[in-house]
């Protein structure tokens, strides 16, 4: 599966998408779900929580293992996707559609510090070796 060019990425395999309203939508990548396998549990942060960059703020669990999800940038949680918490397999079906939460970033320019699709592709390839 190709890595969408319009998203930003972290080294810990989250994706981040800037929205027109200034918020940033966050999920985990296709590569991450592939490594974890069948998803059975998602725990999102509470709406209103202030996140520091890199903070452990959510958990995804597959049949195989639990994995922390880290905040790609600092800001306030303004929405969570309860549909994905009810049906975690949505992440396996389409990791880039199954968003987890939205952040109102403290500093929108922080997005520029994340990986672009080319850099993330290189990271995934380097981890495969």
């Amino acid at each position: 599966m190709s890595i969408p060019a319009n998203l930003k990425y972290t080294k810990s395999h989250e994706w981040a998408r800037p929205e027109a309203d200034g918020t940033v939508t966050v999920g985990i990548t296709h590569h991450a779900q592939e490594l974890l396998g069948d998803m059975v549990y998602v725990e999102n942060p509470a709406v209103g929580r202030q996140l520091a960059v890199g903070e452990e703020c959510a958990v995804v669990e597959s049949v195989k293992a639990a994995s922390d999800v880290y905040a790609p940038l600092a800001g306030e949680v303004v929405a969570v996707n309860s549909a994905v918490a009810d049906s975690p397999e949505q992440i396996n079906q389409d990791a880039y559609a199954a968003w987890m939460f939205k952040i109102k970033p403290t500093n929108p320019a922080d997005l520029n510090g994340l990986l672009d699709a080319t850099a993330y592709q290189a990271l995934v390839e380097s981890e495969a070796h």
Partner: protein
Amino acid sequence: MLKQTPLNSLHRAMGARMVDFGGWDMPVNYGSQIEEHHQVRRDAGMFDVCHMLVVDVTGSGIREFLRHLLANNADKLKEPGKALYSCMLNPNGGVIDDLIVYFMREDWFRIVVNAGTAEKDVAWMEQQRAAHAPQLTIKPRRDLAMIAVQGPNAREKTWQAIPGSRAATEPLKPFQAAEFAQYFIGRTGYTGEDGFEIMLPVAEAGSMWQTLHDCGVAPIGLGARDTLRLEAGMNLYGQDMGEDVNPLEAGLAWTIDLVSPRDFIGKQALLAKPATMQMLGLVLLDKGVLRGHQKVVTPHGVGEITSGSFSPTLNQSIAFARMPQAVAVGDTVQVEIRDKLLNAKVVKLPFARNGKALI
């Protein structure tokens, strides 16, 4: 360098995701672990278990040797082909390994041991042989491959894959084996489903795997093997038991014969330290996933989860937990998951057998 089974390239060709499993390069799944799990409960699947080791014991006086070596009583093996599940204990009562022993003839017993413990097991058996039964021969059979075919349709599909084997293997009761041509076929497994474990020459393993596949048997990875055995209430060595765990506190009392006058390695140690804990099942009532090493809080003291995962059959999380003996089936206990206490119900094992949930 990881060790490979004779089926390694076939796993890759069938789309397996490979992982390091105790030094072996093994398939964890071929796509979806949950789908593979259901495939075994509903139809038929096959497992590469070539990493496990077959050990043949031959000579005269094997029974006497096994009476001393094994915690379960080999005298229960009366009919040829009959198999017995047993622990092999050290003198302190810890579990060196759990194994299956097949009685074929008075001068030939076959033992199947775990992959991770195989070398240690053979060394221990050899040491005991030299001390107590030097006339016996103990022979590891790395020349044999092993494929497990499991599920409600596993036997039918095996009969299609091995023409002529039906007459020899249809009369087998559970936990019984027979030889057919170059095959050794046991009605055993690690899933809680009907089926066979087939031992055969390494050179034929690939063609057998392919033929079974052509007969509609899907390849199943170690991921589903773990959730299947967990639902079936079957212990995993190194997780639910080991050298530092009292087997009487690991749900293994049914396999340990402390009643008969027979003396076996580890018996005195077990008699000297009665069990204070017990192994029971847990079903998580709240949302989340139970995992090994999570703490269990009960009114009678703390316990610990030894194996936990998500049960595809029950569609909720299940676990084995070692808890104080006063905890009873039907109680609600709390499991600590990431600083939260979640409710779990104490249940009897197993959780599922023969395609059906028992909870």
